[in-house]
């Protein structure tokens, strides 16, 4: 009984096949057996989920127990004597497989799982030649309307792995067993066509060919060459294996032992590889001649550019402007900035992550001195309360949520969501708080005030953070105004959240895009860091792209050198803002590397104007993108799946990228393009391989030292945070006027810029049949039903979003999750309109408040 305090034993000792084993309490027999190298066959067992126990193949004998015992779901107990193999057990295991083989189609020659099929392997391993059980077979039609997932019931063994992984690891819980007895099948929860995140985890765990991707699959397992590399999409930096047959990528696979993602992938990672070998890739350099482009060879193109650039050198540092890439490797970005600073003598270089989140970057730098805060996923998982702030967790960096779910199932961690609309997370979060975007700063202040209050009322600040009188006075000064900005219900929720943070003691605050792009990002981030310090918690800054972190670490930013050293050479210090620079100065040449800026820039028309203003624009790109179309010279670069180098993820981990396929056409790694260009301009950097660049980076950037040994960055070098709290009130921000709708971006899991456009599988998930939204037009824009009613809008109404000189059309969709007063528009649409025209000719004033390099800054 609970009141008796007994000392709980932490280990048990048992014997397995005569061998004595000591394991922790709660260890299953199977895990204990594996620890001592005993191989018990399994079929339904999955390391990542609670044991299923459906296949009954992993049976063992336990002395004193009459009959087989399932090793996967029986905890080892003291004094147990286990036998893992015997004639009886072999017979039982054979019987279990024979049950499955009743009516299992012998389609192995045409089944895509052949060669890596657990059923095939067990049938062989257990020596099953024939069996004489039978029941009437009923051929079932394969399910083909489940998006990227295909289900063939005839092949299904009903092991439930897909159901379990979808529930426990993905949290989506899309599947269930439908029906009873022999006719049972796997179905969606609601019986409708599958509408999920299409992470494909279910395919990855299917032991047979029942679940497969709807993509064309032309290889057999033994024909593939597998290359381990890092996903080229978001900032999580998942590792996966690219499966290549005859030089063609046919699929992406993963396994539990691979990388920080432990085999988990999202739809982008698993299905988003088609862009690499699309027919639309650029294969040769092109020079603008008149109205069109002429393809040429590298030497000609480089010589042409070198000559042009040399010609502008006399105009000084402001003759040049450059843009690095969140998608290029550290090596690419490093050589680009070196090319600018050494060969061109200009520090006018930046990247969109820094430009979009300039305020954020300032906040981060301020708090963490030389280094952005870093937090490994292993550390993250130790948290027991995850507070998402401005983070749409299921659409931004989805695999981070897999780690969080591990903490939920492992030690009962909870999730609290704070977002500018009703956010979504599964399993069910503990709290959902919906703030007005304009009040995000006030929200964090109120939370800080409530947290300090609740801690002080209950024994003080446990973290030992210095809540000084000065800090409290500053906080107090902000507090009443901040609380006043929140409505009563939200204020009550904030108090509840503060109490929850106090109760849980180990919170992790996750900072999403919305915070980073907020006009008051610096102040907000400062507050969140304060919250973490006061509560004794941690912070993780989410990053949009695979190298959003690295591009900044490499010093692709004005006045910041690799490793965040300050630029001290007066002659190189640069303008802080690229658009201002181009507009105010006689910038002659603009060099854009691997960044589709005319698409990703929220005010792309303005950037286009800037681009048109310069005399000479060089674009390094992989596709004939909008940006490439506006260039004078286009140079083809290769994608991350065709080259080596390193990416730095949101943990601050530097990971090697390996080429899985040969570069397409004459495309080259970006670093090499700029090294060659430098050489053509008389600056030989002397790099013979990517590793030469990496080695130089390792010597220049603190924390990157370990990468050369194939290791990871030294986290300790990146966590140097000051213990003091600081707070300053930010500049006032424009808040929407009465009647004005606020435009806010809606992230989509499946959309990652131009890469998605050239991945037909992902594109189809968002209902895009062509590569460009601007061609097809009319994406959905989400309104709160109350707003829609007040504005007299119906679902599916067409709206015209107008900004000076440009406009786009959208279709109305109603959603209760949208906060009144705001309109959610796709992240990749132009965010700068100021007027929405309804079909009836009515004008609705609207405003974009995001602190992008948007209209008001450019």
């Amino acid at each position, binding site marked *: 009984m*609970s009141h008796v305090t007994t000392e709980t034993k932490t280990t048990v000792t048992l014997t397995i096949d005569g061998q004595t084993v000591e394991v922790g309490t709660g260890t299953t027999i199977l895990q204990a057996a594996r620890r001592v190298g005993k191989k018990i066959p399994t079929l339904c067992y999955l390391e990542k989920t609670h044991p299923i126990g459906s296949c009954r193949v992993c049976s063992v004998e336990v002395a004193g127990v*009459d009959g087989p015992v399932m090793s996967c779901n029986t905890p080892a107990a003291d004094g*147990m004597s286990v036998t893992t193999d015997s004639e009886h057990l072999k017979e039982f295991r054979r019987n279990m497989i024979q*049950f499955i083989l009743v009516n299992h189609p012998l389609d192995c020659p045409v089944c895509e799982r052949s060669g890596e099929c657990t059923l095939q392997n067990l049938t062989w391993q257990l020596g099953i030649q024939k069996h004489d059980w039978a*029941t009437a077979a009923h051929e079932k039609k394969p399910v083909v309307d489940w998006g990227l997932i295909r289900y063939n019931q005839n092949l299904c*063994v*009903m092991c439930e792995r897909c159901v379990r992984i979808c529930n426990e690891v993905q949290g989506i819980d899309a599947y269930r067993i439908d029906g*009873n*007895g022999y006719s049972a099948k796997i179905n969606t929860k609601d019986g409708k066509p599958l509408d999920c995140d299409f992470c494909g985890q279910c395919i990855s765990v299917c032991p047979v060919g029942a679940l497969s991707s709807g993509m064309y699959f032309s290889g057999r397992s033994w024909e593939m060459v597998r290359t381990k590399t890092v996903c080229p999409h978001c900032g999580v930096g998942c590792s996966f294996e690219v499966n290549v047959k005859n030089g063609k990528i046919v699929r992406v696979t993963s396994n539990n032992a691979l990388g920080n993602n432990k085999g988990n992938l999202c739809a982008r990672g698993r299905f988003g590889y088609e862009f690499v070998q699309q027919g639309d890739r650029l294969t040769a350099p092109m020079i603008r001649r008149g109205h069109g482009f002429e393809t040429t060879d590298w030497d000609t193109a480089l010589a042409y550019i070198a000559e042009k650039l040399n010609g502008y050198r006399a105009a000084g540092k402001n003759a040049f402007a450059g843009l690095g890439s969140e998608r290029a490797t550290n090596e690419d970005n490093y050589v680009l900035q070196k090319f600018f600073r050494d060969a061109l003598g200009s520090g006018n270089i930046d990247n969109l992550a820094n430009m979009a989140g300039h305020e954020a970057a300032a906040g981060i730098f301020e708090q963490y001195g030389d280094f952005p805060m870093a937090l490994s996923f292993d550390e993250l998982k130790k948290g027991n309360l995850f507070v998402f702030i401005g983070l749409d967790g299921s659409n931004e960096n989805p695999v981070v949520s897999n780690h969080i779910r591990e903490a939920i199932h492992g030690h009962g961690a909870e999730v609290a969501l704070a977002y500018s609309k009703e956010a979504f997370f599964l399993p*069910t979060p503990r709290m959902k708080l919906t703030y007005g975007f304009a009040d995000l700063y006030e929200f964090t202040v109120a939370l800080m005030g409530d947290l300090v209050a609740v801690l002080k009322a209950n024994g003080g600040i446990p973290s030992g953070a210095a809540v000084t009188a000065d800090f409290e006075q500053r906080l107090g000064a902000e507090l009443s105004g901040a609380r006043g900005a929140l409505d009563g219900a939200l204020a009550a929720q904030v108090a509840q959240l503060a109490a929850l943070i106090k109760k849980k003691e180990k919170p992790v605050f996750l900072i999403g895009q919305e915070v980073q792009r907020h006009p008051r990002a610096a102040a907000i981030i400062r507050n969140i860091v304060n919250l973490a310090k006061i509560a004794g918690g941690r912070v993780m800054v989410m990053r949009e792209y695979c190298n959003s972190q690295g591009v900044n670490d490499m010093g692709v930013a004005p006045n910041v050198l690799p490793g965040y050293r300050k630029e001290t050479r007066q002659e190189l210090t640069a303008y802080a803002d690229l658009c201002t620079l181009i507009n105010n100065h006689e910038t002659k040449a603009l060099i854009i590397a691997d960044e589709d800026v005319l698409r990703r820039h929220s005010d792309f028309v303005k950037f286009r104007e800037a681009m048109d203003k310069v005399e000479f624009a060089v674009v390094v790109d992989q596709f004939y993108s909008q940006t490439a179309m506006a260039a004078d010279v286009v140079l083809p670069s290769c994608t991350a799946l065709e080259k080596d180098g390193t990416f730095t993820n949101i943990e601050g981990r530097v990971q090697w990228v390996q080429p899985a396929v040969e570069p397409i056409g004459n495309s080259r790694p970006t670093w090499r393009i700029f090294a060659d260009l430098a050489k053509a301009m008389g600056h030989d950097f002397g790099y013979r391989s990517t590793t030469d660049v990496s080695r130089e980076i390792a010597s220049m950037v603190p924390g990157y030292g370990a990468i050369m040994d194939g290791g990871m960055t030294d986290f300790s070098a990146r966590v140097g945070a000051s213990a003091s709290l600081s707070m300053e009130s930010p500049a006032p921000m424009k808040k929407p006027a009465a009647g004005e709708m606020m435009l806010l971006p809606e992230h989509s899991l499946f959309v990652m810029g131009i890469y998605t456009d050239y991945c037909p599988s992902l594109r189809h998930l968002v209902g895009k049949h062509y590569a460009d939204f601007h061609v097809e037009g009319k994406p959905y824009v989400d309104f709160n039903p109350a707003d829609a009613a007040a504005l007299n809008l119906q679902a599916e109404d067409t709206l015209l979003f107008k900004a000076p000189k440009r406009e786009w059309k959208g279709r109305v969709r109603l959603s209760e999750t949208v906060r009144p007063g705001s309109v959610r528009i796709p992240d990749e649409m132009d965010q700068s309109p100021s007027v929405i025209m309804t079909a009836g000719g009515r004008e609705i004033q609207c405003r974009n408040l995001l602190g992008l390099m948007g209209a008001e800054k450019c």
Partner: protein
Amino acid sequence: MKVLFSSWLDVIVDNRGKARDAWDDVKVKLPETYDGARKMTAFMGWGGIVVLDEPFDIVEMAANYVKALQKSSCAKCFPCRVGTKVMEDIFARIVAGQGTERDLTQLEGLCDTISRNSKCGIGQLGPGPIVDSFKHFRKEYQDYVLGKKKGPGYFYPNKTTAPCTAACPTGMDIPLYIEQIKEGDFAGSLATIRQASPMACSLGRACFHPCENNCRRENVERSLAICKLKRFAWDYEDLHVVEKPGNPSRHTRPEKAAVIGAGPAGLSAAYYLLLQGFPVTIFEKLPTPGGAAWTGIPHYRIPKDVMMREVKYIEDLGGEIKYNVHFGKDETFATLRAKGYKSFFVATGGDLSKSMGVEGEDKNYQGVYGGIAALKEITDFTTKDAVPNPAIKVPVLAKPKKVLVVGGGNTAMDCVRSWIRLGCDDVNIVYRRTKKELPADPHEVHESEDEGVKYNFMLAPTKLVADASGKVIGLECQKMEMGPPDESGRRKPVPVPGSEHVVEGDMIISAIGQDCDIFFLKEVPNVKTTKWKTIVTNEDTFQTDVPDIFAGGDVVSGPLNLVTAVGHARRAAQCMGQYMRGEPVGISDEQRMEKIIATIGVYDKNEKIPVPGGWPRQEMPICDRQDKIGSFKEVELGYSLEAAVDEASRCMRCYVVGMACVPEGSAK
């Protein structure tokens, strides 16, 4: 009883070929008829086969049994899902006269493989009676195989249940809700619980859990924490941002139903009536809901703010609660009928404390309380901040120097533990028997001892002693001793003559039981009552002899417990629905089978289960000791997610199928 054949629990009694009066006895209890009219000639289930009488056809019954197994198979393990299907097909061949000897051999092999390897009771215990049939009815099978016989086409009603489910008065599908917790489907788990009871919050905290006394895991090492897992499912919904299931049928029926009493029975009945579409009004005497669960179960066991949310859900589904309506005075059957109420569920409970029958009880001494009244005052006082209610006059509780509580049941426990929490440091139980006979939950007794309650056993009160001002100052008691064994062999305590002495105490609470207050029935003389002042209803339908009046809970069973009341309500609501829709009022085949299964009993405490033990039950975390004394904070803190999932994983999912043979066919 006498039966033709039985292999129940491996005790073989074979009276075939013997004269009926020479039949051997068998220790099995079964009704002789299926529904009071039609004969039941055989029963097949987890424990074997019982043949009560001719006619029966064991092969056809076995074929139907296997079919029922396959239908009940959850498809979550290979041998049961595929194996029972293979068996079903073979049986179909045999019954159609196309079987072979080889089929029988194969069936025997399948039975062995399936029962040894299956995941749960369906596959593990299901083949048992089939094996028995091969062993003892080989000739019948051979007749089929040789084409000499064909199935007569009898009726085989069956029911899938489990030992825990069969023991639960609500018939809750316990293995399913436990499995849903194990699988992380907490909302699904709660939905399963709600099919049997909307009171997961209260039951999960204060049920006396007969299920756990019928849990097969007890035979392995220790029963599952079924009750507290229910609480986990409810708390999970309560704590997280979950959209609670709505009521798509809300007020879709024109017939209004009235429920008298907002206690566990009343609230539950209202819930099931609402789900059937009937508008429901609950008339409650007090200003608070919950009945005995509110007034009688202290705040530290069921926090009333939490319970309020449980009640609010029933209101959200369309239920209306009218408080402070004293039925029989403010409203009557006649007035409500006039207002259009089409049927009544009387669930007024038992809230009159039984008198001790001692001298001075009629004198209204100050400081003397009935158990229920004492607890109600305490609850009103202790919940004044958590659930402020302007309709309640918060009592002033003067701390007594010494409390004497007479009685040893759970009400007595609640009284003493409450006064400990209210800061009284001399709290005593007076009980006329020994500790062994205390009817209270042993866990409660232990906790109370831990908290400092003193016990006076073998002591019976005889007289209340008061001072001149009419304030009670003590209780005169008599010592008891064990008398000679009576005819049943039990020794009863008898008073020791001359042992009278006064035990001091300035507060005396009599907690020896409650009576029901059914004065309002005078209006409807056709509703029968018992000599214990409870209402007589049909035991299946809870309908009284006045067709629109149904009753359930303590007012029918006499003061009992939460879960029994809730069980009554679920059935009564079903039958009220039938009545109001103009359908015949009665129970289904499955419910008939439930009764038959309850008669034979599912749980066998002597069963040896081939599962290695050593998987400890998850301990329930409890609040710090300082929170127990002088505070009404909830004692049990509830399972964490991982503890709940781990505890749920211990469940062996002991589903079993019971089947009856009714030669006269189904009643249609």
